[in-house]
């Protein structure tokens, strides 16, 4: 099973920095913007973005939250993956705010669909934007497109993309795995995580 690195430590850091500058370019000092990471893997990226934004902007007032979408998935009872939830932490009102949803890999779009559904249970944001580290183009099952992208990857169904973070996995890197054994496992992400769909 060949594994190819797409991004490694330095490139991940540069990409995150660029994404932060993109956000500042679009939204000024991020007043009225809330960064919301999707559990479980999107929050790793969201925390890094937040840290970097605080460094660049020099203040800590950026609204930040984490959202679990387990109960909103459309594949409940079809999969054997985790049914237990992660923590949700959104302690501010979304009314009138621009929410930037953050996830690591955008693949079929179904996670984001569930994320939007979960997000709207907290109120009515003015706008919702989508930021992803990796966009697996041409593999969408729903009409969902990202606004900010770290890197585009053209991959076919029996390939998988995994994102590892220094904080939990030892180093920052994005890997592309080509799996020739069983095409159905293409949406099984290593570590049992399930953001890549």
């Amino acid at each position, binding site marked *: 099973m060949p594994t190819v690195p797409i991004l490694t430590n330095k490139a991940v850091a540069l990409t995150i920095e660029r994404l932060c500058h993109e956000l500042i370019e679009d939204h000024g000092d991020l007043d009225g913007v809330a960064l919301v990471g999707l559990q479980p893997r999107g929050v790793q990226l969201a925390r890094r973005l937040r840290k970097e934004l605080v460094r660049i902007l020099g203040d800590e007032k950026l609204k930040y939250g984490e959202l679990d979408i387990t109960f909103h998935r459309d594949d409940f*009872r079809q999969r054997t993956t985790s*049914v237990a939830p*992660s*923590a949700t932490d959104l302690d501010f009102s979304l009314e009138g705010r621009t929410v930037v949803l953050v996830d690591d890999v955008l693949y079929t779009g179904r996670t984001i669909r569930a994320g939007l559904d979960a997000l709207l249970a907290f109120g009515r944001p003015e706008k919702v934007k989508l930021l992803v580290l990796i966009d697996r183009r041409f593999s969408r099952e729903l009409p969902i497109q990202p606004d900010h992208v770290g890197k585009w990857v053209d991959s076919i169904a029996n390939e998988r993309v995994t994102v590892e973070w220094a904080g939990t996995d030892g180093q920052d890197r994005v890997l592309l795995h080509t799996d020739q*054994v069983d095409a*159905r496992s293409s949406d099984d992400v290593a570590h*049992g995580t399930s953001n890549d769909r």
Partner: protein
Amino acid sequence: MSAKSTMGSESEVIPSDQLSTRHLLGIKELRAADIELIFRTADGFKEVLGRPIKKVPALRDITIANLFFEASTRTRVSFELAERRLSADVVNFSASGSSVSKGETLVDTVNNILAMKVDMVVMRHPDPGAAVFLSKHIDSPIINAGDGTHEHPTQALLDAYSIREKLGRVKGLKVVIVGDILHSRVALSNIFCLKELGAEVMLSGPATLIPRHIESLGVKVEHDLDKALAWCDVANMLRIQLERQGGDGIANFPSLREYAVRYGIDLARYRKLGKELIIMHPGPINRGVEVTSEVADHANSIILDQVQNGVAIRMAVLYLLAARIPRSTV
């Protein structure tokens, strides 16, 4: 980087975050891992219940029948709220005025309801073992909402969950259950649940209301309430079930007043302890009997937390059992 094995069919893999059981008939069938999973899932639902929109779509293709063959208010309301907040469709059935009074058997009644495409059954029944019996005759998941004097698993789960929430753990804590142990399904389920989670359990009450040989379940018995309270961290004050007393022609204690004096907690008794004892009660409270109003409304009383947590716990149980129902592909 270790990739998950891809050999074999996906459906053969049962992940560790599934319940080990298809039904919730009693706590006795659950393992500590199941209870921890239910608590972890309930944490998520507790957060959902704090949102402006307290509803998730997880069970929108599931229909649940609530079969109550015995009177109940809070348990039925709690289950119904839990079901609706999971977006399940709900049908309610109570014994009075139903075909049960026309002589239909339990299995026939339930099969008739299931024939209308009902996916799960929540049942309260006056006979011990009714849920276990039913589980041997029908395929759908069954949740026991109390069967006679046998078990009331969701009550025990919400009790232990409330203790965990208040004190941060259950393991190693000392819990005394006070009152009518003999007629109490809450007591039996609580004993199983607390023991499985590693707590120590003591029972206190009049000798007539404590079953003989109950020590064989690994619990202590102390008839002197003051000694029991001095020992414990948490006191679960069971309701004196007036409707179950004297049914066999024998009064189990001389008078409610005497019971209140010997086994009730008033503020004086509470203060004399000189510690932050946690007070619980499964409700409905007979104020002035098991606890006085001052104690029921005390800062260390978690009686209303128990009620609130009941919805989250029942959502977790329904959700985790529903996760094991195969999805219809038609």
